[in-house]
């Protein structure tokens, strides 16, 4: 993987935005293919064997969310959404459809590259999940179901532990409230979002140094949570 340049398909109709995104990605050593329409994007996505897709939600010839669903029927490459819309509902719909992360316009180059790197890294991370993990000053031992900070055990309830595992497994991605509820409480869950928020709050109090300014479990307001190591 390291010898090959990552292949990125950029599906964006605004030429000026494509231009700087492409330039930034190429500087990072990526190989970028552009598509200005959803139809073209589908072709590029299926022929270029991309490592990542950057997708604008507001395409002239179709709904970006439908395209995400299309891709997800046959592939698992990461999809990063570029959204000009301020509505949280669109982002949630795209994430629930299978997108991995989103960036709201306007975004900086640094932000863009950080997200792209995180998603590209994920692909290798998933392959070699270790039973032992380090998150900042926390140690996770999945084989013993224990979480310690500097050798001192943190007492997590089963739900908190499961929540932490789900978040950890999705590092670098955004998980919507709906996705987290389904993963932690199972597909038949009847709990509402405030349940999840209470558990996240409690988990933060145990693993974050300042729960009001968290470093690991970040809130994506109105959308869900993002886990960061």
């Amino acid at each position, binding site marked *: 993987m390291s010898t090959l340049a990552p292949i990125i398909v950029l599906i964006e109709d605004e030429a000026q935005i494509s231009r700087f995104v492409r330039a930034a990605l190429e500087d990072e050593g990526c190989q970028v293919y552009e598509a200005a329409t959803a139809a073209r994007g589908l072709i590029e996505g299926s022929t270029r064997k991309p490592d990542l897709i950057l997708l604008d939600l507001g395409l002239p010839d179709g709904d970006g969310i439908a395209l995400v669903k299309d891709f997800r029927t046959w592939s698992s490459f990461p999809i990063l959404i570029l959204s000009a819309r301020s509505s949280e509902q669109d982002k949630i719909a795209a994430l629930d459809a299978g997108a991995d992360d989103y960036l709201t316009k*306007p975004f900086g180059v640094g932000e863009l590259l950080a997200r792209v790197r995180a998603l590209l890294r994920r692909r290798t991370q998933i392959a070699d999940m270790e039973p032992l993990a380090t998150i900042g000053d926390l140690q996770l031992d999945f084989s013993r179901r224990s979480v310690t900070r500097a050798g001192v055990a943190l007492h997590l309830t089963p739900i908190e532990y499961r929540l932490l595992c789900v978040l950890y497994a999705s590092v670098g991605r955004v998980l919507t409230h709906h996705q987290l509820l389904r993963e932690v409480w199972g597909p038949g869950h009847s709990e509402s979002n405030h349940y999840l928020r*209470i558990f996240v709050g409690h988990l933060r109090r145990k693993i974050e140094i300042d729960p009001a*300014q968290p470093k690991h479990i970040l809130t994506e307001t109105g959308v869900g949570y993002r886990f960061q190591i």
Partner: protein
Amino acid sequence: MAWVTISTMPFHLSKTAVNYISSIVICILTTLVSTSLLLFVDLANIVMLFLLAVFLISVYLGRGAGILAAFLSVALFDFFCVPPHFSFAVSDVQYLLTFAVMLAVALITGQLAANLRDQAELAKQREQRTQALYEMARALSGTLKLSQVSEITAEFLRKIVGMESVLLLPSDEKELVPVTVHKVWYEPHMAWTAYEDKQQHVLSEPDGLYYLPLKGSTRMRGVLVLSASQNSPVFPSENNELLLTVASLVAIAVERLHYVDVAKQGEMQIATERLRSSILSGLSHDLRTPLTVLVGMADSLAVSKPPLSSKQQEVAQTLRDQSNHLSGMVANLLDMARLHAGEVNIHKEWQPLEEVIGASIQLLGQSLEHHVVKVTLPDDLPMLEFDAVLMERVFCNLLENAAKYSADQGAIEISACVQGGFVKVSVSDHGCGIPPDKLEAIFGMFVRGHAVEEANKISGTGIGLAVCKAIIEAHQGSIKAENLASGGASISFTLPLGEPPLFNEALLESELI
């Protein structure tokens, strides 16, 4: 009585006179026929002829003519037919009984016949009125304008009860105004009394005016003023029922037109709102695209390889900061426009305050890197119901302001406490504070805290706090600013506590690992 009628009603004079004259003529004709038949027919049968004449006169010529005919018949019968002829004297006393019975029968049948005639006449008149009323109702149901309602009503009243009328409707200025040009002189305060008191009607005898309130299904719709014509200065009470019906028909028509109006306005409002929202979303997209390019390009410049010289780097950095700043302002302006247009769907959910504060600090990132943000929340602070995205905007604006108006390395404190049925949240800084005379004004649109000279050094549009106020008020809270005794400003707002959903606390404690 008849003379009074004759003197005051020239039209009826001739008709009544003709009836009486006809009655006399018929009686004379009957007498002629009777005398010629005297030789062949018995007197008892002659009586029958006279009775028939009286009956017919009563039916066709009216009550008065009938009474006249009854007496005249008896007299003529006595004079010409009963022996001795050509004298009122009678030879046989039994004829006196004949006269008495004849008079009685003539009067009774005559009166019965006249009653019948009157009733038939009345029924006919009623039918005509009902017919006219139906026609008016039908005409009113097809009206599209208030002036049409007024005209149809006036036409009907003129034709059926011979009265002039004017339709008065309430205007915005709390007074009754006529719908069309009219010839009725009326007392505005009397009309207002009828409108306000919701009585059935107000009768003003000396002027011959009648004020009929129009009672709609939900509220009073107006007043119909009737003026009796000169021919009948006294208001006939038999028309009461009819006029009340007219009033309710007019009220329905006015009400219907009112609701047509309301529906039209509603439709227009929806169309306007749709247009506004499409303009807003179009504007939002159109502004965000060039801003994205601007921020991205400036950013690419700053990180370009080979690295720029320090001076160029500084330019690129400024470019980037200003673009970001512009983007924030545009976001605030669009939010304000949306909030003002009622465009924002408030998506309230129960959530801890801590979360949205953390998200806001994280979102501001670099803008806060020169400040220390200290968050102090009580452990038992209950969850609150709010729209997280909007509340994030409130915290971002308050934190940004605090950072902007206080020195580098200054502390910014966020705290919260329960007060009554509300949670009070404060964001305080140790900066220059707010001029005391502007503590309230700063929440207005485009109002900034500091004198222009000073404000020029710190960029801003004066819209951030206005957005905060709009958002907090949409959450049934309030926001205010104050200066701290220790220096610096503190903006605090309240959010209602409400009733948080039940939560099984045991789940949090169960089965520790």
